């Protein structure tokens, strides 16, 4: 479920990070789900998000953290409407969390769109930083989730 696209296929990348608790300790029992638009910004509507056909992009993925608290997805960059900042919708589950947590991981590149984003604009710089993924030298994305404490990820209510 953590391979939304075939590894190493054109445009594919690894989105990964570590889930940590209030002591900074890795959480080895977290479950991360992502849901995203395709690179051109279209929202996947074709059925088959659970049993994939191997070529349709369905935009949904699920990954369990390793004993080191790390999750990874094979996916590709989400897109957005022009001027909008593309992001992955994240849901986090773990033992000790009696309910889910929602957050977003934004792509780091389009600084104008990030500056215009209404959610990000309302946050303090250190809060804002928790929602923006960083680009790895390989072209992947790094996004840590900190449930509590220093650099605590901003979570959402709708």
């Amino acid at each position, binding site marked *: 479920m953590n391979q939304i696209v075939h590894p190493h296929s054109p445009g594919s990348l690894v989105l990964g990070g570590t889930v940590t608790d209030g002591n900074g300790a890795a959480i080895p*029992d977290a479950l991360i789900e992502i849901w995203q638009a395709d690179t051109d910004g279209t929202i996947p509507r074709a*059925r*088959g998000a659970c049993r994939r056909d191997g070529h349709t992009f369905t935009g949904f993925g699920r990954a*369990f953290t*390793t004993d080191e608290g790390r999750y990874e997805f094979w996916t590709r960059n989400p897109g957005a409407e022009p001027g909008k900042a593309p992001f992955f919708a994240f849901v986090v589950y773990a033992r*000790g969390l009696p309910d889910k947590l929602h957050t977003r991981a934004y792509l780091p590149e389009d600084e104008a769109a990030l500056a215009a984003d209404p*959610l990000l604009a*309302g946050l303090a710089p250190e809060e804002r930083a928790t929602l923006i993924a960083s680009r790895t030298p390989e072209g992947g994305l790094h996004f840590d989730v900190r449930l509590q404490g220093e650099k*605590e990820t901003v979570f959402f*209510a709708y």
Partner: protein
Amino acid sequence: MTTQTSPTAVAPAPESLLAAPDQAPQSDITAEIVAAHAEAERRIAAGETLPATLYDFPAYRSSILRHPTKNPRLVDPETIELLSPAFGQRDVAAIESDLTLQHMGEPIGERMTVEGRLLDSWGRPLRNQLVEIWQANSAGRYIHQRDQHPAPLDPNFTGAGRTVTDGQGHYRFTTIKPGPYPWRNHVNAWRPAHIHFSIFGSSFTQRIITQMYFPGDPLFALDPIYQSIRSQKDRDRLIGVYDHDLTSPEFSMGYRFDIVVDGPDATWFEPEEEN
């Protein structure tokens, strides 16, 4: 057969993995639950808005270092958040909704069916949505490799199933009734028997993982996970209803468990989707 296997593709570990450091007696845990509920009521009476589930619930020891300390940010859902992953009947095989048919023999335990409807908060059925369940076997043992509870594994029971809701939002599973199991939150901690449910609504904001319990369980008042839901009305909604009309003569006990998802979605300004 001593090859190292990858730890991927295992189900989420059961709560029994994480032993709390202090190992308090049940009386302390019960007192903490009562105090936390009283505190929540006091704050609500003072005008605060609290979520239905209390993330900061120290009686559930592993929540102590894992609950966010800041209030969640109120966000207007956008684009993908207003829709949810698309599933269809071909996403699952029909047999995946029968947890008693996954092996050569029949699992041991009280055979049961659970059925219900998936609805949004307007009472509209949610069609073609994935419903996943997982559970312990009748002896209270998960098949998870980290579950070391010394109750027997059942070679004929894995404990995971899934289905996709039909055109009226109905789902149905056949399984065996799970047993209660011990965990290490405190001394003599036992979880009430339950089936985990994972639900997709029509928007990603409605995504929910919850648990169905069984009527009359004496462990309800003692269980800090169940009690992290602060209102009795909401806790009652997690209890499946025994329904004799769903009980099949000489075959299985029947329970009804309707699930209502909450949260904003996009469906009320979209035309009904064609199948």
